[in-house]
């Protein structure tokens, strides 16, 4: 709390501002801030405010949104409201200001929980009392990621350990043309690409930057894959780039690069949609949705029949499985301390989780709208549905998911089992949903990162080691130089020297310290 003196100064300042503002903005209509809990009626109907990101920057149809709000009120007894966060970097700014503001109510938002620990509510009791469905809806590991090392829960999970995000996708028609089966070894993968290239000289391998390449391939040459690891020499946590074998991997990637296998912009974040259209990508080593979503759309638009991609479930390299599972993230939904209705929020979310993976009706109501008006079940048992307005690509014609607030794991992932009626009346299972539904919890094909269950507090780390972003930039920049041959691998040892100069020791100490909170020696 602040001192009275400061308060007075604040008041004076505020009054001065208000007076001056009134003079300037004489014709401004006073914006009445809608305050929650105003009057007796509002006391009975709790009102909650969400901060949401939707692909509809201006919201959906005002009428549909209002109808869904009323419908949800009838079903849950809670009046829901949403702030639509702006796109891009302004999103973070807006969220921070909403959280900081004294006049704007906010009851739930999304982010990495360690960053907000000081201003959010611990949820253990609330979940125990109002959120049994939520508790049951996530694995023990997911919940572990939401807790600090003292065991306090700070959010409910949005993301966690994911098995479906990285697979090598091969051009299946080119494989068939070469008479090859889907490879399962490193040599097989290289042979397959050579065969493709001999038939199609334009064929290339593409990734989306070094980290995606590492998720897909680093495990083939190292013991821990794309993971921080404990160096037995000094029992300290080290970056993935310093484990034995990383140098070999760099050499292998350099070999690919020099042979002209890799798309030249693999590390330069090009326009992947356009690149997919050129039909030159023989092997895709990036994020899955570019294939399951973007490519699938291009394929349907262009009417391709033969041309397609298929994934390799497992690739085994000299050191074992090439893939590393996408390590747990501590992205969560949190309730700010200033919330006046935390119990209502949890009750609402708990209602969405009701039914679990078997019955996602409530989730679909929050996401698509009113059954019978926006969508309906064709066969609930078989999870087959049809959409009326919900499927419209035009925001203004539909309810645009303002009150969904359960993205990621849990209900959204369960709902990927839903099959939809297509334009011609047949029932189809969207390729993207099918992929998520099949692989999201399949971790066997990949390595488990050593520290997958540690929710690092990176803000604290950066606070004590401000050079951490420099360190990461340096590792990335130099690694790519090694891959593209700008820097010869003979300079590896001097690179390690330079890493020491960039603060490797400090990095190691801080990460080890946090790692040890969860994994004591």
């Amino acid at each position: 709390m602040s001192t009275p003196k400061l308060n007075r100064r604040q008041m004076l300042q505020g009054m001065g501002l208000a007076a001056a503002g009134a003079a300037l903005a004489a014709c401004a209509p006073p914006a009445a801030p809608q305050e929650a809990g105003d009057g007796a009626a509002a006391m009975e109907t709790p009102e909650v405010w969400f901060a949401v990101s939707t692909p509809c920057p201006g919201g959906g149809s005002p009428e549909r949104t209002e109808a869904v709000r009323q419908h949800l009120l009838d079903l849950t007894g809670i009046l829901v409201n949403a702030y639509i966060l702006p796109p891009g970097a302004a999103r973070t700014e807006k969220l921070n200001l909403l959280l900081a503001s004294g006049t704007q109510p906010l009851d739930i938002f999304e982010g990495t929980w360690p960053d907000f620990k000081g201003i959010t509510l611990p949820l253990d009791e609330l979940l125990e009392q109002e959120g049994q469905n939520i508790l049951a809806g996530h694995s023990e590991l997911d919940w572990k990621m939401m807790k600090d090392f003292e065991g306090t829960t700070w959010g409910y999970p949005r993301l966690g350990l994911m098995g479906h995000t990285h697979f090598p996708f091969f051009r299946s028609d080119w494989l068939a043309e070469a008479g090859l089966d889907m490879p399962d070894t490193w040599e097989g993968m290289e042979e397959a690409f050579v065969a493709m290239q001999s038939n199609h000289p334009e064929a290339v391998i593409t990734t989306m930057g070094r980290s995606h390449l590492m998720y897909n391939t680093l495990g083939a040459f190292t013991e821990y894959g794309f993971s921080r690891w404990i160096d037995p020499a000094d029992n300290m946590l080290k970056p993935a780039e310093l484990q034995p074998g990383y140098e070999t991997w760099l050499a292998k990637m350099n070999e690919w690069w020099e042979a002209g296998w890799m798309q030249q912009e693999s590390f330069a974040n090009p326009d992947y949609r356009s690149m997919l259209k050129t039909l030159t990508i023989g092997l895709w080593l990036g994020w899955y949705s570019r294939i399951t979503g973007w490519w699938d759309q291009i394929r349907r638009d262009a009417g391709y029949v033969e041309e397609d991609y298929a994934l390799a479930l497992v690739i085994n390299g000299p050191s074992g499985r090439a893939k590393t599972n996408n390590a747990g993230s501590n992205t969560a939904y949190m309730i700010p301390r200033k919330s006046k209705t935390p119990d209502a929020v949890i009750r609402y979310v708990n209602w969405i989780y009701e039914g679990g993976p078997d019955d996602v009706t409530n989730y679909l109501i929050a996401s698509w709208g009113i059954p019978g008006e926006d969508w309906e079940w064709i066969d609930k048992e078989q999870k087959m549905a049809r959409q009326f307005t919900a499927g419209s690509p035009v925001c203004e014609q539909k309810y645009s998911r303002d009150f969904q607030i359960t993205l990621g794991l849990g209900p959204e992932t369960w709902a990927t089992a839903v099959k939809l009626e297509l334009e011609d009346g047949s029932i189809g299972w969207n390729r993207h949903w099918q992929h998520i539904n099949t692989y999201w919890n399949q971790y066997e094909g990949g390595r488990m990162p050593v520290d997958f269950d540690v929710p690092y507090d990176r803000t604290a780390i950066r606070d004590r080691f401000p050079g951490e972003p420099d360190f990461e930039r340096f590792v990335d920049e130099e690694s790519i130089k090694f891959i593209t041959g700008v820097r010869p691998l003979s300079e590896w040892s001097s690179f390690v020297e330079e890493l020491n100069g960039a603060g490797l020791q400090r990095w190691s100490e801080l990460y080890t310290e946090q790692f040890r909170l969860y994994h004591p020696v």
Partner: protein
Amino acid sequence: MQQTGGEQLGVGVTPASSAYTERRGFREAWRQIKRDRFLYALAALPLLYFVIFQYLPMVGVIIAFQDYDPFLGIDAMFSMDRWVGLKHFRNFFDSIFFWNVMRNTVVISLYKLIFGFPLPIILALMINELRMRLFQRTVQTISYLPHFFSMVVAAGIVRAMLTPQGGLLNQLVVALGGEPKAFLTDPTLFRSILVTMDIWQQAGWNSIIYLAAMATINPEMYEAAAMDGANRFQRMWYVTLPSISFAIVITLIFRIGGMLNAGFEQILLLYSPSVYAVSDIIDTYVYRAGLIGRQYSFGAAVGLFKSILALILMYMANKVAQRLGQEGLW
């Protein structure tokens, strides 16, 4: 008499003349203020704007010396609890990339200045020499068209032109018998691409100010020059350019003051690890440093550092302009 006194007050930046003013005392000052009361009345409301919307929020710079967290509210700004002094400045200066980002910032800005500053003037001169009204308008309107693409769009267009996967430029290269090339990943080309893109986007737009200045030139001056036998180039050189020099100088001073803004959004959208070494500027550095957490204090510290440098640069540029007999900023 009134005229002379006013003259000295108006130009009065030199210590001599302000001392002179001092001697003449408050009564003379008051007399002048009363004389110009209409002018002060005109200025009052606009100045109030500056007080409220520019100066009041300026208290916010103190967060550069704190570990400020917006969630603590505005009160926290006025408490000493989170005072850290020059910590954020030191963190910035201590970075192993500090000199790299400073050099990139200055070099990229300088290139943009050297190539990007004269071109709008030349473009304006060329457009001004056109005699066909309709053509003149068409050229002008089209020339500033790229200014209206947001950076996301402009960067998308540049990528589509330069990609080795069938980009326009690479099609040309292949047609001429060359090998397709990933231009954007080449450190020797990256800055040139930035500068070219900058010119493409801004040259037409920046020429507007010069065209406006040319509109105020008295046509009799051209007639007189033509009478003296001056050709088109000579008229441009001896009539047009000197007449718009006040616009050129003030624009140049502003550009120099903005030297440390080398094009954040443009670079962020186009750069990649292969070209970090030649393209990482102060703003992209701060962006990466602030990616995690709410580093408002760090951002404020770097912002303040940039402002102070800009102040020094503009002060010097202004001095030089005044030495050359030009109208400066004050």
